[in-house]
């Protein structure tokens, strides 16, 4: 189904140790541009397509959450994304200087019973945290020194 990554030996792909750090302006357009660039870089590393799909979706949801909530009402702001590939996983760490998560915790996923809904009641939002929880491993949030830190990993083989 997904293309096999080019591997050296049994477990470690040649991208072992690859890492990237980027500062991204807190606008949806900048997020879009950053994700397009990251996807290009990771495709060239030969990572499995399904892992890249999961990564891009999770990053889009978390980063746009930062734009829309952490920096809501702010004139400007930015976030830092550190991504690295090792141990058959993509490890990510996002930090921003915006407002803390409500209650100092990650929001709970919202689940909808679509079968019971009329068309006019279908949700037009609120999917983000469900997707983030479903597609990541080791998801964590900490508020340290006026900064939000979200960490997670995407396993290449899950």
């Amino acid at each position, binding site marked *: 189904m997904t293309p096999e990554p080019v591997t050296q030996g049994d477990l470690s792909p040649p991208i072992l140790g690859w890492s990237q750090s980027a500062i991204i302006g807190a*606008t*949806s*357009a900048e*997020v*879009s541009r950053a*994700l*397009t660039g990251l996807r290009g870089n990771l495709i060239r590393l030969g990572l499995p*397509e*399904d892992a890249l*799909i*999961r990564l*891009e*979706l999770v990053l*889009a*949801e978390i980063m*746009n959450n930062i*734009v*829309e909530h952490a920096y809501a009402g702010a004139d400007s702001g930015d976030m830092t994304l550190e991504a690295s590939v090792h141990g058959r996983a993509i490890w990510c760490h996002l930090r921003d200087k915006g407002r803390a998560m409500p209650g100092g915790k990650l929001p709970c996923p919202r689940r*909808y019973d*679509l*079968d019971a809904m009329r*068309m*006019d009641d*279908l*949700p*037009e*939002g*609120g*999917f*983000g945290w*469900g*997707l983030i929880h*479903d*597609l990541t491993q080791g998801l964590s949030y900490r508020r340290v020194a006026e900064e939000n830190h979200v960490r997670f990993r995407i396993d290449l083989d899950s």
Partner: protein
Amino acid sequence: MEMSLQPQGAVSVLRVGNDRIDAAIAIQFKDRFRDITADVAGPVVLDLGRVTFLDSSGLGAVVAARKLLGPDRALELAALSPAVEKVMQLTRMNTVFPIHDTVADALTAHGVAPAA
């Protein structure tokens, strides 16, 4: 937002020309969809063949588009890329929208012979 409408018999095929429907473009998608379908009477098939990325904001815009058409006009999706299909499955929106592998399949389902 690049979107073009092509009538095929009773069906209108709406082709999205952008490769992403995400938070940066969701509002434009909704506005353009509203304008372009204003005078459409029958079912609309949204051709997503060019779209390689859809996030929850983009999905919200597609749901909003569905509501704009109202109960008398169908909105069906065609030619989903793996990333778009994944979002539809995870959110279970694939149970809300009829989904076709190709635009030709969508037309056939409506009894319209696809143009050669």
